[in-house]
């Protein structure tokens, strides 16, 4: 993660959003995807990603699948049914948060509404 506490609370939501868009993904793929989308500005650290994935799996939000790729096992994560519903909730929450922060940080833009 970029060296900021601000991103940490949103890591789960970021993972869920990516899985919603891409179906199933594996850990390394997620780190790369985030890098590409944010043009290298946001870098999810491995030490944060895997604990987050394992926790979401235990909560029943993610399900895992194993495939043999090249000469090794690959663990794919995908959203469960309840995970898909939860993603919608969390994205709405995050959007609210972004909107509120924007109004707080930049009060002038409120005048336009």
């Amino acid at each position, binding site marked *: 993660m970029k060296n900021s506490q601000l991103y940490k609370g949103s890591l789960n939501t970021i993972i869920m959003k990516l899985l919603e868009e891409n179906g199933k993904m*594996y850990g*390394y793929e997620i780190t790369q995807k985030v890098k590409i989308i944010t043009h290298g500005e946001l870098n999810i650290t*491995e*030490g944060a990603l*895997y*604990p987050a994935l394992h926790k979401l799996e235990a909560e029943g939000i993610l399900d895992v699948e194993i495939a*043999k790729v*090249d*000469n090794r096992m690959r663990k794919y994560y995908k959203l469960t049914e309840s995970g898909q519903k939860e993603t919608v909730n969390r994205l709405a929450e995050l959007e609210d948060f972004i909107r509120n922060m924007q109004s707080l940080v930049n009060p002038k833009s409120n005048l336009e509404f």
Partner: protein
Amino acid sequence: MKLTSEQIDQLFSFTRQHYVEWYDLQSELVDHLANAIETQWEENPKLTFDQALNAEFKKFGVFGFMDVVEKRQAVLSKKYNRLVWEHFKDFFGIPKIVLLIAMTLGLFSILKINFYSQWIFIGLYLILIVFSFREMFKNSKRKKQQIKEVQKRWLFEEIINQYGSFSVIALTPLNIFIQLLNHSKDILSNPYYTLGLSFLFVLFAIIVFIIFKIMPAKAEDYLLATYPEYKLDRL
């Protein structure tokens, strides 16, 4: 450029050297490191395998894989506790509640009638302790064998076989029971206390039974549910 099978094996030993003892975590980390190394080679084909590996490992921070391992342990221990709790709750639903009531009343009537009730009580408790120790001993022997034969070890299997955080449970109530026995004349002469004591003892016996018998017996099912790769491994 792709990694060779030997290099994959090297990655497995690398995770082992860095205190990742369990196959489920090893294989995920190995795939991660392998992908990362291959990406580095695309950008800079001159890098050696070791250079690329070290660069990737640094990204995990000063504690290396420890963070990933610890969090995974915490998540799976929680899962274990939840499963034990579900089995425990079972005894308060139909039909098992009948058994719970019958055992409580059975113990109650023995303790109430018999002159040697306090010795019967302590005898039953000793039976539970001996049973727990026998199971623990069998498990530790099996684990040693696994390590000796370098078999794959699964973190959740190990949590089940070490009884999560319940491993000391067989001894925990010892003090309480000894205290109770010191006051046994008062307690065992009062039928309500005796009934309460019988109920507590039965609950304790149920927990011991769940963690030392039911959970290990169901281990295979739980492992299959936790790890899709466990099935591949057993084929």
